[in-house]
């Protein structure tokens, strides 16, 4: 059997790759594959998901994942982080409160003429056999009870406590077809769109850029939840041999995406600054008359000094113009940031020379845009 693998991953809208708590891993030497979705409101869920998938694919043959070992690794890694000098007060508090990381999980192992899979939570494995007659012919695995309802309460592995829910296991003979291992947002989309979704995956998702473009469109169309999204696509084709051989293995490395993001990250002056509060304070005279103690406007609205009403009005107008400028400046910075991200992606694909990248950066520096090293 010949195996080809593709793997793609991305973050929630308006977040970064470094915020993504989905993880996957594949090991072609022992034919083990795994995907995990770190629960974003838990403690260091990215570390937990990362440890689960990597521990699973590193195991020999039919060895079981030791959650205890995974928990020790997670605790060591988090303790290292908490023991750094610049640890945040909220990180330290959560560590003292013994908060845990949570993650859903799917593991797949192919051995000889069989495959074995296990799942906990709402990440899914779908196996779509070649020549199938539709969704009912697919093999589906998660620990979600039927009928499948996607909600905020999936089963999970905990980095400190007992797992929530029961691990589901299946095994089947190896036949031609494709495995799709995916986290919950994509799983829900596949459940809703069935063959249409698989068609889109097979025909459109040939690389990370295709995947991201598709995800953006699906989110825009409101058919895909705005969540971290990861997928491993493992296709099996009978090549007449009794052994497993690997053809194309094209799995997007998340760390690589994070590194590119760091290089292209623009240091902006508080791009998230919201100007509406200042605008409201300036625009409403009835509020102004009762609010001479707004912290950052005291100077502008002092009525007991030598300033005349005209001067106050002028001062208010100036502040209004300033706010509008800040608005335009913020939008420009965001636009530039998006262009630079594109340059980062473009340079990765088209190999723009470092010299050329340097020139772009120098040009942008003239406009006060600097970069993190």
């Amino acid at each position, binding site marked *: 059997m010949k195996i080809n693998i593709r793997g793609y991953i991305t973050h*929630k*809208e*308006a*977040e970064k790759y470094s*915020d993504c*708590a989905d993880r996957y891993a594949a090991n072609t030497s022992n034919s083990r594959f795994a995907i995990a979705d*770190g629960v*974003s*409101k*838990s*403690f*260091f*869920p*990215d*570390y937990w998901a990362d440890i689960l998938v990597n521990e699973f694919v590193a195991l020999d043959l039919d060895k079981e994942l030791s959650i205890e070992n995974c928990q020790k690794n997670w605790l060591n890694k*988090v303790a290292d*982080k908490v023991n750094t000098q610049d*640890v*945040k*007060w*909220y*990180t*330290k*508090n*959560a560590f*003292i*409160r*013994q908060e845990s990381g949570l993650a859903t999980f799917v593991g797949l192992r192919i051995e000889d003429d069989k495959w074995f899979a296990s799942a906990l939570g709402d990440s899914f494995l779908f196996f779509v056999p070649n020549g199938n007659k539709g969704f009912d012919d697919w093999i589906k695995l998660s620990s979600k009870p039927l009928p499948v309802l*996607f*909600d*905020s309460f999936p089963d999970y592995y905990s980095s400190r406590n007992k797992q929530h829910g029961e691990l589901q296991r299946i095994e089947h003979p190896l036949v031609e077809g494709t495995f799709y291992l995916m986290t919950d947002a994509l799983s829900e989309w596949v459940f809703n769109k069935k063959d249409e979704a698989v068609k889109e995956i097979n025909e459109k998702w040939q690389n990370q850029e295709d995947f991201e473009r598709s995800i953006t469109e699906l989110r825009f169309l409101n058919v895909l*939840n*705005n969540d971290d999204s990861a997928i491993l696509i493992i296709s099996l084709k009978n090549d007449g041999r009794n052994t497993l051989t690997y053809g194309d293995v094209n799995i997007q490395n998340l760390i690589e995406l994070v590194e590119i993001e760091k290089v292209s990250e623009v240091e902006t002056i508080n791009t*998230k600054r*919201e100007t*509406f*509060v200042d*605008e*409201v*304070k300036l*625009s*409403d005279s*009835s*509020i102004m008359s*009762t*609010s*001479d*103690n*707004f*912290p950052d406007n005291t100077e502008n609205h002092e009525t007991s000094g030598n300033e005349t009403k005209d001067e106050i009005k002028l001062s208010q107008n100036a502040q209004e113009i300033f706010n509008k400028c800040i608005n335009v400046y913020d939008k420009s910075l965001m636009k530039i940031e998006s262009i630079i991200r594109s340059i980062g992606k473009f340079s990765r694909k088209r190999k723009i020379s470092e010299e050329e990248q340097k020139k772009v950066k120098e040009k942008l520096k003239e406009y006060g845009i600097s970069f993190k090293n």
Partner: protein
Amino acid sequence: MASNSKQWSSATPGYIIFLVDQSGSMSEPYPEKGNKANFTSMVINRTINELINVNMAGDKVKDRVFISIIGYGNPAINEIRSDYISKYAESPIRIETGKQKVSDGNGGLIEIDVQNPIWLEPTASQLTPMGSALEFAKKLVEGWMSKKPDNPAPVIINISDGLPYPDEEEQKALKVSKEIMALSCSDGNPIVFNAHIGDSNAKCICPETVGELPDDQAKFLFEISSKVPDSYIEAAQKQALAVKTNSKGFVSNADPETFIKFINFGSSGGSDKR
């Protein structure tokens, strides 16, 4: 999609306005923390801390909510702070060391030292311009929604010990609160919740009718409260609050623990939904 059901996210952050009564009567004694002003500050600080916890995934706080703290009393209307949640996390006014009980892993509890950040200091003097405060909050809500029409509907949580003063502030509060509830964005109407720190023992939690209320202050605050949206039921259950079909987002004379639960509930609807 049901009203008030949009989840907070970095792409579409929620907006919470805490309106804090800082009038003279807030210096009156209160069983918890000595007086009403101290208690209110403690509740707000604890709520923001909780919001940081639920929007934090380790060493980073995600900006899924923008918060304004508006005081009214002296000075008349004081915009204390307006920021994304990560900015609150980065820069509290100060951090106190406190004790907290946590599980010892063997069914018992142990007391540990934790750091308690402070963003709101207690203060209490002069009048109760609640109507003007709501008017300001309305402008903020309109400003936010004009820039972010597709975000979750904003939530205003007003904490007060009684009626607005001077008298015209009462009519203003009635009028403006209805205007706020009539505003709309793609997620529905903004929500106004009220928490009454009263002096009587007549406790009332999320009532359905005005007849259930003991005094004029409570009746007034009930009038200016929104009905609890159906989409908040899950969050209410999580806080063990008995919310009924027609309950309004209002508590009166609640014990401190219920009071804190109510504020957490009011401010967590968007983070508890999928």
